[in-house]
């Protein structure tokens, strides 16, 4: 039951995350895309997961997405983020996070940035 809630693309949250990832230029055919989507939805519900990402967040993603290992989740996410940032969507990432990255962001930081952006959007829509 829980798995279906988190992993499903059909929820409004899933659509928003998918839209952001595609606009950032993360290729939909890569493994990292699936894992990032799952991780961002998890981090949206519980931001504390990203504090010890290796011990809490990645094992959960591994279980939910049927990935091979925790290491492969981290590697695929990192490669996807790297490729997207170097391909020239840096300005969009700056818009999401309100920061100027000097190097490409770490995987956990990327996930937290997008999750915070989603929270910020929620606050704005509530105020309106």
């Amino acid at each position: 039951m829980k798995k279906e809630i988190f992993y499903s693309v059909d929820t409004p949250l899933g659509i928003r995350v998918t839209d952001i990832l595609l606009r950032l230029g993360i290729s939909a055919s890569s493994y990292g895309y699936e894992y990032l989507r799952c991780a961002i939805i998890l981090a949206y519900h519980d931001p504390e997961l990203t504090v010890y990402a290796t011990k809490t967040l990645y094992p959960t993603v591994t279980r939910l997405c049927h990935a091979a290992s925790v290491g492969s989740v981290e590697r695929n996410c990192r490669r996807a983020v790297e490729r997207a940032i170097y391909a020239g969507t840096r300005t969009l990432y700056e818009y999401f996070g309100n920061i100027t990255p000097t190097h490409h962001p770490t995987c956990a930081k990327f996930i937290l940035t997008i999750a915070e952006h989603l929270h910020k959007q929620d606050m704005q829509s509530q105020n309106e």
Partner: protein
Amino acid sequence: MSLQTDTAEASASYDGLNELIDLLISELGIPTHLKGFKYFSLAINIVYADPGAIRNVITGLYRRIADIYSTSVSCVERDMRTALKMAISSGRLTLFDEYFVCALSNRSVIPPRRFIAILSERLRCQLISVQASNGNSR
């Protein structure tokens, strides 16, 4: 389960899914008379119904398409690649840029696999949001 029933189920889930896919691909600039057009249409249909099909394209997706059109896997892949190349060289690049952000950064050819994956994801996003807005309006 054969492929025909798969695609029939996929198109049954949304009225006119095939027409929508054809419209989308032709708007991106892929010439409709090429074989690659038909292959793309079928491939996006399959991946839309089953997202896991994008994982092993050579032995899974292209093999199924090749069986249906009675050709070989390499022919399917080559026709798709040629169609995509023509679209990039002569199509509407503004629409391409909107859909494939990272893919066209150096104006090169993108792999057909990435094209299929991104389009099916976009399509799923749009259709679900359209269905949600219809449900709210009622």
